[in-house]
C-alpha cells in the first residue's frame, strides 16, 4: 500500500478524485473549470515538469512553465531559470527536493552519466515520470534497477535516444527488417576518436557555485579538477566511459532497431582500446569492438576511428554511422541521434499495409524535428500511459552492448555473454563488474 501511495502523482490523485466526484454526483467537490472536456484541456491535464541537470542537452528539455530547475552548479540553475522559465520556479542543487514535491509529475534528467540510473530509479519511486538522457546507465545492475523501478511504480520512462523518433532511422529499420538487403551478416559502426585532449588540468577547490559532493554523487570520491565537469566527464571511466557509451548509445540503438534485437543480445564481446598517455582522462580514446550474435548469426563491429563511409553519389565522408552488409545489398545509416539519415532507397521504401514489418511510429506528435518529436512522444505518453518510442526496457538492452564492451576492454580479454541471464559465462571477475558499489548515501 505504501508503494501505491508513493506511486500516485498529484495528477493521478486529481483525476481519481474527479472521477469519484463525477460518479457520485457531488459537483461541489471539484470546480467545473478544473475538469477537462474534448477540445479543452482542464487544469488537471497540465503536467507539471521539473528539470534535473540543465547543462548540455539538459537545458534543451526545459519548458517555460517548469516548476523547478536543479543543477549541481547553482549558477547554471539560476541562469536557466532566468532565461528559460517564466514565473518563479524552485531553483536548487539537491534533486531530492524536487522528488519531495508532490505537485511535480515528471522530470527530465540531464545530469552527468553516472547519475542517470539512480535519479531515474528514485524519481520512479517518488511517482514521477522520467525522460532521462542517454547513455541509459553505467552498469548492468543499474539498467535492471531502472527497468524494475519503472515497472513496479508504473511510470513512463523515455530514454533520450532520439534516433527512435527519426523518420530516416525508421525507414532504414523497416527497409532492413523487411529483407530489402537480404540476410545481414555484418554491421560495421565507425566513429571518430574521443574529443579528449592531452593535459592534466589542476586539482583544486571547486568553485563556490558547484557542489562537488553532489556532482560526484554515487561515484567514488576524487578531488575536483575543472577538466572533469561539463562535456569532458565523458572521458573518465568513473563518469562517462567514452564515446562508445555516449554516441554509441545512439548508433547502437539504431542497429538494434534495424536488426530486431531490442529483446536479444550478443553471445560474446571482445574489445581493445588505446588511451592517451599524457592525459588525465582514462577512457580509451579509440576502441575496436566485436560482438557476435547467434540465431541468426551476425557480427557487429565498432571501430573508432574506423573507415568512414560515404552516401552513394556524394563525396563527403560521414562522420559516424553504420553500414549494414546483407547478402543482396548494403545500406548506410549516418549518425543515430536526431540527425540520423540514410540512403534514398530506404526512404522510398514503404511496406504495404497489413504486410511486412511496421515499426513503432508516433503519428500523433506534430513536430518535424526528431528531438522535439521524442520529447512530444514522452509528454503524450505521460497522458495516455502508452509505451514510449524508447522505453527503458529497450534502452537497457541497447546500453548492455557498450557496457560489456567496456568491461572486455578493462579486463583485456574476450568474454562470453549470456543475454538471457545478463551475466558473463565462466568469468567471475567480469561478473563483479556488472555492479558498481555506490558511495554512500546513494543506493539503488
Amino acid at each position, binding site marked *: 500500500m505504501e508503494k501505491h501511495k508513493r506511486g500516485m502523482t498529484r495528477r493521478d490523485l486529481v483525476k481519481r478524485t474527479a472521477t469519484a466526484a463525477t460518479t457520485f454526483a457531488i459537483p461541489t467537490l471539484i470546480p467545473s473549470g478544473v475538469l477537462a472536456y474534448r477540445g479543452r484541456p482542464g487544469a488537471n491535464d497540465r503536467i507539471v515538469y521539473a528539470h534535473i541537470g540543465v547543462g548540455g542537452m539538459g537545458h534543451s528539455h526545459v519548458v517555460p512553465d517548469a516548476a523547478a530547475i536543479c543543477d549541481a552548479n547553482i549558477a547554471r540553475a539560476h541562469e536557466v531559470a532566468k532565461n528559460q522559465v517564466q514565473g518563479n520556479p524552485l531553483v536548487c542543487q539537491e534533486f531530492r527536493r524536487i522528488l519531495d514535491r508532490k505537485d511535480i509529475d515528471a522530470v527530465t534528467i540531464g545530469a552527468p552519466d553516472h547519475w542517470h540510473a539512480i535519479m531515474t530509479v528514485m524519481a520512479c*519511486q517518488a511517482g514521477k515520470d522520467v525522460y532521462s538522457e542517454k547513455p541509459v546507465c553505467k552498469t548492468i*545492475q543499474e539498467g535492471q534497477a531502472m527497468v524494475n523501478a519503472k515497472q513496479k511504480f508504473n511510470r513512463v520512462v523515455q530514454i533520450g535516444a532520439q534516433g527512435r523518433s527519426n523518420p530516416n532511422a525508421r525507414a532504414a529499420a523497416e527497409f532492413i527488417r523487411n529483407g530489402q538487403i537480404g540476410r545481414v551478416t555484418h554491421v560495421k559502426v565507425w566513429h571518430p576518436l574521443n574529443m579528449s585532449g592531452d593535459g592534466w588540468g589542476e586539482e583544486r577547490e571547486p568553485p563556490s557555485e558547484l557542489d562537488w559532493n553532489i556532482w560526484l554523487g554515487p561515484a567514488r570520491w576524487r578531488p575536483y579538477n575543472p577538466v572533469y565537469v561539463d562535456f569532458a566527464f565523458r572521458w573518465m571511466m568513473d563518469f562517462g566511459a567514452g564515446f562508445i557509451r555516449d554516441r554509441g548509445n545512439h548508433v547502437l540503438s539504431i542497429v538494434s532497431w534495424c536488426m530486431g534485437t531490442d529483446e536479444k543480445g550478443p553471445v560474446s564481446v571482445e574489445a581493445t582500446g588505446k588511451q592517451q598517455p599524457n592525459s588525465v582522462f*582514462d577512457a580509451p580514446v579509440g576502441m575496436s569492438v566485436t560482438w557476435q550474435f547467434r540465431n541468426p548469426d551476425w557480427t557487429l563491429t565498432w571501430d573508432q576511428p574506423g573507415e568512414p563511409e560515404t552516401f552513394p553519389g556524394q563525396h563527403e565522408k560521414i562522420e559516424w554511422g553504420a553500414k549494414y552488409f546483407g547478402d543482396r545489398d548494403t545500406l548506410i545509416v549516418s549518425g543515430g541521434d536526431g540527425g540520423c539519415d540514410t540512403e534514398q532507397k530506404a526512404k522510398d521504401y514503404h511496406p504495404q499495409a497489413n504486410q511486412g514489418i511496421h515499426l513503432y511510429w508516433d503519428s500523433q506528435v506534430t513536430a518535424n524535428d526528431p528531438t522535439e518529436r521524442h520529447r512530444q512522444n514522452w509528454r503524450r505518453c505521460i497522458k495516455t500511459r502508452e509505451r514510449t518510442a524508447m522505453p527503458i526496457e529497450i534502452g537497457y538492452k541497447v546500453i548492455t552492448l557498450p557496457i560489456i564492451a567496456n568491461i572486455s576492454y578493462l579486463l*583485456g580479454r574476450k568474454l562470453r555473454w549470456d543475454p538471457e541471464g545478463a551475466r558473463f559465462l565462466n568469468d567471475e*571477475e567480469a561478473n*563483479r*563488474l556488472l555492479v558498481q*558499489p555506490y558511495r554512500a548515501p546513494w543506493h*539503488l
Partner: protein
Amino acid sequence: MSVALQQASPEITEFLDKIKSPNGDIRMAAWQSAGPMGSAAIEPLGELAAGNDKGIAKAATEAMRVIAHHAARTGFREAGMVSSELLKIAASDKPIMVRSDALQLLGCIGNTRFVPGLVKLLADPKVQEEARMALERIPGIAPLDALQAAAKQAEADHSGFAQNLEQSLYNRTLTPTTVGTQLPKK
C-alpha cells in the same frame, strides 16, 4: 630510489624503465603489456603511481590495473599474490587516489583472505568508504559477516559510518529482479 625499485628483477627493472620513459608512447606500450609482470611489479608501481610526474603516475596506475585483471583470469592463480600487494598499497600512507585505486582493484580480484585487511581499513577515515565498497563487491560469507560485525560496532560507537555499512548490507541483498523496487527508508 625506494627499496622496492632497487630490489626489482632485471626483467621488472627494464619494464619499470619503460614506465618511467619521458616518451608517452613507450610508457603506454609498457602498461598495455604489463600483465605478465605479475605481483612482483605491484610494489614498485605503487611507488611510481605516488610520484609527482603525472605521466609516469598514470602509466604506473594503468599497469597495476592491467596486472590485476591479467592475474584474475579464470583458471589462473596469481590473483591472491597481486591482491596481497594491492592491500599493502591500500594500507600505506600513499596519496588517497593511489590507495583508492588499489582498493577498487581489490574489490574486483580479491577473495575472502583479504577481508581482515580490508576490515582494518574501515577505521581509516581517508579510505574507509573505498574499503567498504571493496568488501561489498567481494563475494562470499566472510565479507558479509565482516560488514555485519563492522556495522554493529559502528552502531554501538554511534559512528556516522554505520549508515554506510548498512547500505552495503542492503546492497548485498539485492537481486536482478529486486534491485530498484524497494522504497528508500525515511
